[in-house]
């Protein structure tokens, strides 16, 4: 008897579930189509700002860039995509100075890993989201990023924005030092009460060692 019940309940729940599925697809039939028709929608196309397509060196209105020609980007590039060519010039006060001559970037070899931008100490280069990079010859992929006749911006103008990596400090160390500070200070200042303190406050061995080490360090710096 129960098997007959099971047969019919299975049949009707099956039909119900199939109809539910069809209701879902019916709604899906009228949803907005997600297809992007690329060449036609170029005007309204939205590309994320973080999308990395083309390496650029921003120049200001005086045709000045921020590149100091240090070559860190060239060293960090895993593919050897970047070549920083430098030249020596003589400044007004007679000093010799190494400045940027040509900054060559090969799009054909770039993996868009962003290491050059992350490691640049003067924030001189960045990736743009201009994605239409196709050209007809390989040689056009090799680009010079610094403009013709450009020169380096003065140091005080080029203020590097604080990167998030620098601001985030490991927060674990400080509270430990602060909480233990009164105990260690008392140990350091009054040597005669040190024995007493050790007797009363049963500190772990590691903390005692740490306080000793800190005291020794303070003495060496004073000397």
């Amino acid at each position: 008897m129960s098997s007959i019940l099971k047969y019919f309940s299975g049949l009707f729940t099956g039909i119900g579930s199939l109809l539910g599925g069809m209701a879902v697809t019916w709604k899906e039939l009228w949803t907005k189509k997600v297809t992007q028709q690329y060449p036609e929608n170029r005007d309204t196309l939205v590309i994320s700002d973080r999308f990395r397509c083309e390496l650029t060196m921003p120049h200001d209105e005086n045709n000045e860039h921020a590149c100091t020609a240090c070559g860190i980007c060239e060293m960090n590039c895993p593919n050897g995509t970047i070549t920083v060519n430098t030249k020596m010039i003589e400044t007004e006060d007679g000093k010799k100075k190494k400045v940027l001559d040509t900054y060559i970037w090969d799009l054909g070899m770039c993996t868009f890993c962003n290491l050059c931008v992350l490691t640049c100490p003067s924030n001189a280069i960045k990736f743009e989201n201009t994605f239409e990079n196709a050209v007809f010859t390989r040689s056009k992929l090799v680009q010079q990023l610094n403009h013709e006749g450009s020169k380096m911006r003065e140091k005080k103008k080029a203020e590097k924005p604080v990167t998030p990596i620098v601001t985030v400090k490991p927060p674990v160390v400080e509270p430990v030092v602060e909480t233990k500070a009164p105990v260690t200070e008392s140990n350091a200042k009054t040597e005669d009460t040190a024995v007493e303190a050790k007797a009363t406050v049963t500190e772990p061995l590691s903390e005692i060692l740490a306080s000793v080490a800190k005291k020794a360090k303070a003495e060496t710096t004073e000397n």
Partner: protein
Amino acid sequence: MQQPLEISNLTTWLDTALRSGLPTFWVLLIEFVLVGVALLAAYAVIALILIYAERKITAFFQARIGPNRVGKYGLIQSVADMIKILLKEIVKINRADRFLFFAAPVFMIVASMLTFGAIPFGQGLHAVDFNIGVLYVTAVSSLGIIGVLLAGWSSNNKYAMIGAMRSGAQFVSYELSAGFALMTIVVLAGTMQFSTMIEGQRYCWNLFNGHISSMIAFVLYLISGHAETNRGPFDLPEAESELTAGYHTEYSGLQFGFYYLAEYLNMFIIASIATTVFLGGYLPIQVHGWDGFNQIMTYIPTYVWFFGKTAVLIFLSLWVRWSFPRLRIDQLLNLEWKYLLPINLVNILVMVIIVLSGLTLTDLLPGLF
């Protein structure tokens, strides 16, 4: 009533024109050739339209746009595909059974073509009106499975073989259900001839006339017909993730085109038989007593009614196809032998009782229907 847009006007005019100048033998010969050519052309054109419609509707179900590059809205996309498929090389398979390999697609296309010829497309657009039309259609459409089995056997390919065997099991099972569902309506209509069956549905479709029993038969016919066409959730003979392409793995070019065409035409044939048997065929919607309404409905040509109703059923089939996941072979056979067939047998009994005890809608409400 006036029916100015009917194609039957043209055919009658042609017939009288030919008969006035030629002996009967030549008239018949010319008409046979014309009917054959017209059916073949319709076969190809309907397949092209169906391929386009399917791609578009599929795309809409998947929140895509679908073909839209070849012609306005991609309208001649399937024509381009057809030209491509005609130009492709027919690859000769090593150690395949050459004769059967070439014969298989012909079986497939001939079977669906024979069925196609017996469908009433509209008033006077009915090539052959057998007095056993339902039986003929059921018998001839099941010939197609021979093409599938031959293709699988002669390809010398294990995927094709497994696909063909699955298809055989599936087709033999579901043919039974489809036949019983049609039989239920034959009991109701009291005839196997398509033309009289359609005339009997002028004011009340068979779908409503036999009410509960008819509706069950309709759903059962749609399910089993869908399974017969190897589509939708029942496409395991060509499950591409398991069997590359199933029974037509080794076919290319025009031969593959035959299978492709036959698949779409079988979908159309199932829908059109369902239209004819359940939904009043090519007849417009008519209501007793509403003479003005009836007259307006009659102005719409009968072939428009036929293709409209068929299109609704084809859309239903596509909707089902993109809603449900593919069945396993055991689930497929369970569905047929444990559910559809018993329900069908009970249903045909219920229909006999309904008809004999005068419980059909036309008996119950003679004024209305």
